[in-house]
C-alpha cells in the first residue's frame, strides 16, 4: 500500500483491508466447520457455527462503518477508492457466505437425526471444492495476485457440474425410497448452499480482479446450472 501524506489515511485503509481479511477468515472457518459438522455428524461443531455467525455479522457492520467514515473524511481516489469499494462488496459476499454456512449447519443438525446417507460423502467433496475456492480467493485478496482470482472464476463451472450430478443422484435416491425424502431434501439444500458459496467466491474473484487491475474480467461468467433445471432423473 502506498503511503499517503496523511498517515492516518494509510492506517485506516490498512485497518480496513485487515478487517476484511479477518472477516474472510471467520467465514472460511464457518464453511469448513459446517461441512465437517455434516460429514462427521458432529452436532457440537454445527451449533458452534450457528452461534459464531453473529461475529461475522458484527464484522460486516464494523467494516461498513469504517468505509462510511473513510469515504466521508478522506475522499479516496483511484486505487484507494477501488480498495474501499472492494471492501464493501467483499464484506457483503463474505457475510452471505457466513449465512450459508450457518444454514448448512442448521440442516446438518437435522440430517444427523436421520440414518446416514451414502451421498453425504459426495456433498462433502463438493464442500471441500467450495472451501478451496474460498481459500484461493481470500489468498488472492491478501497477496494481490490477480491470477488466483482468475483461476477461482474459472473453477465455478466444476462446482456447478458437481451440483448438477448430485441433484440427479439425490432425485433417483428419493424415488427409490420415499422414506428418505426428508433427509435427502435437506442434503439437496446443503448442496445448493455450497453451490451458492461457490457463486459468491466467483463474485469476490471479480471484485478482486477489478481492485487489482481496474478492469472487469472479460467474457461470459461461467454458468453450468442449467443442467439441474432440465434434469428429469
Amino acid at each position, binding site marked *: 500500500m502506498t503511503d499517503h501524506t496523511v498517515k492516518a489515511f494509510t492506517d485506516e485503509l490498512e485497518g480496513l483491508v*485487515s478487517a476484511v481479511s479477518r472477516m474472510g*477468515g471467520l467465514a472460511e472457518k464457518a464453511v469448513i466447520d459446517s461441512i465437517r459438522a455434516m460429514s462427521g455428524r458432529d452436532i457440537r461443531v454445527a451449533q458452534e457455527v450457528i452461534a459464531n455467525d453473529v461475529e461475522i455479522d458484527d464484522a460486516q457492520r464494523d467494516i461498513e462503518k469504517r468505509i462510511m467514515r473513510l469515504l466521508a473524511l478522506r475522499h479516496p481516489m483511484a486505487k484507494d477508492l477501488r480498495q474501499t469499494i472492494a471492501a464493501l462488496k467483499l464484506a457483503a459476499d463474505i457475510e452471505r457466505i457466513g449465512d450459508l454456512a450457518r444454514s448448512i449447519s442448521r440442516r446438518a443438525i437435522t440430517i444427523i437425526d436421520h440414518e446416514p446417507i451414502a451421498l453425504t460423502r459426495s456433498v462433502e467433496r463438493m464442500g471441500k471444492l467450495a472451501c478451496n475456492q474460498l481459500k484461493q480467493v481470500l489468498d488472492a485478496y491478501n497477496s494481490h495476485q490477480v491470477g488466483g482470482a482468475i483461476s477461482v472464476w474459472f473453477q465455478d463451472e466444476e462446482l456447478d457440474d458437481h451440483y448438477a450430478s448430485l441433484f440427479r443422484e439425490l432425485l433417483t435416491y428419493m424415488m427409490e425410497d420415499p422414506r428418505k425424502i426428508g433427509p435427502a431434501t435437506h442434503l439437496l439444500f446443503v448442496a445448493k448452499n455450497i453451490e451458492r458459496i461457490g457463486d459468491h467466491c466467483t463474485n469476490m474473484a471479480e471484485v478482486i480482479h477489478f481492485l487489482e487491475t481496474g478492469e472487469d474480467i472479460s467474457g461470459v461468467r461461467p454458468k453450468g446450472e442449467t443442467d439441474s433445471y432440465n434434469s428429469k432423473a
Partner: protein
Amino acid sequence: MKKLYDFLEIPIIVILSAVIGSSLLLFDLPAWIAISSAVLLVLIIAKFFKYIIREIEKLENIPTADQKGNIAVINESNLAQSPTFASHAFDAIKTPIFIIDQYSRVNLANLAAKRRFAIETLGARVETSVRSPEILRAVERAMDENKLVSVNIEHHFPETIYENIEITPFNHDGRFFYIVSLNDETNLRKAEKMRVDFLANAGHELRTPLSSIRGFLETLQGSAKDDEKARERFLGIMVTQGERMSRLINDILSLSKIELNEHLPPKDIVNLNETLDFAINSTTPIIDNYKSEVVLNLPKNEVPIIGQADQIQQIIINLLENALKYGLHGEKVLISVGHGIDLETIQEIGTKSIAGSAYATLCMPQKIVGQTYSYVRIENAGKGIEKKYMSRLSERFYRIDDESAHIKGTGLGLAIVKHIINRHKGGFLVESTPQVKTAFTFFIPN
C-alpha cells in the same frame, strides 16, 4: 587480553611517541621530523601488536567439543562478523515462528512461517496473512493480557492439522513484541483418531469376506459334509475370500501409514525414469497375465522430482494395475512422461488430450508462481469411466458398481494414490471417453 590492550592502546601510543620523540630530539633533528617519525614508528608497532594478539585469540578460540561431543563454535566475534548467522539459524527452524509488534504488524518471520502463511513482505498487518480466527484471537488475548498465551487449535482444510500455539511477549527498546510459534501436534492426535476410523471402515469391509467364509464353513460342517465335489469348490472360494481379506488389510495399512505422513513434505530427489522402470518390472507378471504390453514414451534426459521413491513407485504400480485390470485385455498401455511443465499446460495435457472426452480433477495443488511439474500419464483402451463417477474415484472403498462383480480390487488403490500425491503437493487428473479409452495423469513438483 584484547580488552586490556584496547584499554591501554592510546596511552601507550602517546607515551611511547613522547619517549621516542624526545630521544630523537637529542640527535639534533628538527622537531617536526622527530615527532612525526616517532608517531609513525609507534603506530607501526601498535599495528603489529594488534595482529599478533588477533592471531593468539584465534588460537585460543578453536572450536571445542562440548560434553556431547558436538563441535560448537564458542567464539562470539565470529557470530558478530556474520550478521546473517542469526537469520539463517532462524530460517532453519522447522516450526513456523513469527514476531509481531504492538500494532500487530509482522516484524520478523522465519522461512517456515513465510511458507505457511504466504508472508511476502514484512511490516504488513498480521490479519492479511494469517486468517485463522483462532490464531488471531490468541494473539489479541496475548496483547491484552501481556502474558504468555498457549492454545490448542485445529485446522481442517486442506488437511487436518492439530497445533499448539504459543504467544510469548517480550520487551525491546520500550516496545512490546510477541513471538508466535506453532507447534505441530498432528501425529499425536491423528493416531488417536485413526484408530476410530480404521475400526469403522475396515470392520465393515472385512465383514463381507469373513461372513462368506463362515457361511461355507457352516455348510461344510452340515449338509455338504460328505460331498467331495462341493467341498473342493467351497474351499477354493474360501481361499479367494481369504486372499481378498489379506489384500484389504495390506491396503488399509499402507493407506493409514501414508495418511499419517501426509502433511510432512518429502525431501528426496527421485529419478522418475528409474522409478518407472522399477514399477514396470515389478508389475511384469500381471502384464503377462493380461497378455498386455507397456509402451513407454520417456524424455531423453533424466527427470528429477522431489518425492519419496517407494511412494512414487506405488502410485505407478496402482495406476498401471488399474489400467491392466479395467482396460481391454491384450491392448497396449501407453505411459508418457513430461518434464518441467507449468500447471496450466499439464491440465491441458491431462484433461483435454482425448478428443470429446469427459474429465475430472481428483486432486490439485495450490498454485505457486513459477513452480514446474513432471507428469506421468497412463492411458489404456477400454470401457472407460462415465463423467458422473469420475469425481468419486479417489474415495475410499468406492467402486463403480457394475465392475466390482468380476474384477478383484479393494477400492483403496486410487485413495492411496491420491493421498500420496497430496503429500507430494502434486495433482491427479482423470480423462475418459466411455467405450474408448481412459487416461490417468499425475504430476509432482520438480
